[in-house]
């Protein structure tokens, strides 16, 4: 789960990392009031879970409170990478001498958290890693010991020459590590971490993603979820414990298992179609889940055909077939449905589907070809 910049900054500030003062606003009037309170030049920043806000015009400098209000009215409602801006952060504008990057994420290969630092801040760290890897210092943090004091120093020593700035940087690295652990984060970054002309080190922008599996332990962070920031269909799916990702195609996919769901999407593409979504309905044959899945898929106006691809392993195919039919009876579906069921008790399942008048297949290739045909014909 991603949280907004302003929320991440609250966590950093609480942990003792210097962050310029600022507050979130949901209306131009609020933004004006905050700008007045802060005084001086402020920055108005769109709060959306997307990169490239600056390029999209979602970050604006305002020399007066009135200017902050005007920028805010333009930014609110703006669409950035498909997400509508609902709030802005109004924050004190800092003079910048240098920009660095500081971040922690969980590294799969190392099976441990990885600290990363670069004196080339302000740009995407992946870009730094690709084009100037010598400007990136990486450190595996042993989960048994956490970030040790000399490691924090070693990271900061890579960013700064001035002893006082190294000290500030090491302190920030130690605090950032605490934020990472205490939030149950999968990623946290400060980019840029600036120095001011007078030598103060400060966090100007921050990102934090929390491991969804940790949320039960961090209720105060779970509460930060901004449901307006995610598409309604995905929120619905999450609440029903379904994994759903919307895509731009026309073949609605409903599959049991994430790997098979991806393979199904790929096969749709292989046969010339375009998948409308990723959707994993999991291992159960519960009709309620299928109903929700169908509701989510059919809410997407692009969908021209619905494709079920079910491999019955532990879950028996006949149970799944019954569940699908019950679900289909409970909601009204306007597009054709094709179903593939294979595995345990597949014969009984096919019988059930045929009786109900459904197009039933046992081969994944056959059903995908049929779905692509139907989508093309529609």
């Amino acid at each position: 789960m991603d949280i907004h910049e302003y929320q991440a900054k609250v966590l950093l500030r609480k942990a003792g990392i210097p962050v310029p003062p600022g507050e979130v606003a949901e209306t131009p009037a609020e933004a004006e009031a905050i700008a007045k309170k802060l005084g001086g030049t402020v920055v108005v920043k769109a709060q959306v879970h997307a990169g490239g806000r600056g390029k999209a015009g979602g970050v604006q400098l305002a020399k007066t409170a009135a200017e902050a209000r005007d920028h805010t009215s333009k930014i609110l409602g703006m669409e950035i990478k498909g997400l509508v801006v609902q709030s802005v952060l109004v924050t004190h504008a800092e003079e910048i001498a240098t920009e660095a990057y500081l971040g922690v994420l969980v590294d799969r290969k190392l099976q441990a958290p990885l600290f990363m630092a670069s004196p080339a801040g302000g740009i995407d760290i992946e870009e730094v890693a690709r084009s100037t890897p010598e400007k990136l210092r990486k450190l595996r943090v042993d989960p048994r010991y956490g970030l040790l004091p000399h490691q924090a120093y070693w990271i900061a020593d890579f960013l700064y020459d001035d002893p006082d700035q190294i000290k500030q940087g090491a302190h920030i690295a130690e605090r950032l590590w605490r934020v990472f652990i205490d939030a149950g984060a999968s990623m946290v970054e400060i980019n840029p971490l600036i120095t001011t002309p007078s030598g103060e080190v400060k966090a100007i922008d921050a990102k934090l993603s929390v491991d969804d599996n940790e949320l039960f332990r961090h209720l105060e962070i779970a509460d930060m979820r901004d449901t307006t920031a995610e598409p309604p269909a995905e929120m619905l799916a999450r609440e029903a414990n379904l994994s759903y990702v919307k895509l731009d195609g026309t073949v609605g996919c409903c599959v049991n298992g994430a790997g098979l769901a991806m393979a199904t999407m790929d096969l749709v593409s292989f046969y010339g179609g375009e998948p409308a979504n990723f959707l994993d309905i999991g291992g159960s044959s519960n009709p309620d889940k299928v109903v929700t899945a169908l509701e989510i898929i059919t809410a997407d106006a692009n969908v021209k055909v619905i494709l079920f691809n079910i491999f019955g392993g532990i879950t028996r195919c006949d149970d799944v077939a019954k569940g699908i039919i019950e679900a289909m009876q409970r909601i009204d579906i306007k597009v054709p449905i094709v179903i593939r069921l294979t595995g345990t008790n597949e014969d009984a399942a096919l019988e059930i589907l045929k009786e109900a008048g459904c197009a039933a297949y046992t081969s994944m290739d056959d059903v995908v070809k049929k779905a692509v045909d139907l989508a093309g014909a529609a």
Partner: protein
Amino acid sequence: MAIFIDENTRLVVQGITGRDGSFHTTQMIDYGTQVVAGVTPGKSGQSFAGPKGEKVPIFNSMDAAVAATSANTSVIYVPPAFAAGAIMEAADAGIRLIVAITEGVPVLDMARVHAFARDKGARVLGPNCPGLISPGKCKVGILPGQIVTQGPVGVISRSGTLTYEAVYHLTNAEIGQTTCVGIGGDPLIGTTFVDCLEAFARDPETKAVVMIGEIGGTDEQEAASYVREHVRLPVVGFIAGQTAPPDRRMGHAGAIISGSAGTAVEKMAAFEAAGIQVAKRPAEIAELVAAELDR
């Protein structure tokens, strides 16, 4: 022969009295797995009734279960909040192979757990994995026993039902398996493609290997390098997620393209560069394996 589990596997089920734990214990016993004990805190002295009236003793702790039964393997069906603790308990009790089925274990828990398991010399499979099966010998986890058959192919996969799909085609083509291993869909998994490749390469009965990967991470790329340098067996690969968009999690916690890293394209290229045959469709996997075995 087989890898990781066989007729000598003595299994403890952690969380045996839960819904999933009890269901799959029955399935495993049915398949012939020696389930020697179950663990559920507070239920020591009770026993679990197998499908043919077998009585599996239940203990309060792994420590007691291992002491009483000389178990060497465990499988974990406890809820996510307790899974890390259960794995460490198993490792501490001297279990050598710990199969963690549980989905949704916090990733920072797993970072600690993997360090702990390494310290104790235990192998963790998973978490968020379907387990593994050595056809005709032993099954640990949730893989459906009826779709596999004994034979010469080792299967390694990050996914559940996609593996069933692949194995089903193999079995229908009368190509059996030595062991099918589901390594799991999480970002931090205990046993990687490389670990399995190493084991299959040492197994005299395995004549070919199938690797079913997906987007996210670089485990497949490392496997490709390993194959190129160390594996003489023919290897057939498949990668799911060619149509997945970047920065979106595709069901599995680990199935995510981060920026431009972890794409299906780069993984398939790595496979091909290592001489691994890459199937375009799941059904093609069995065809390619058949061709390799026929050589």
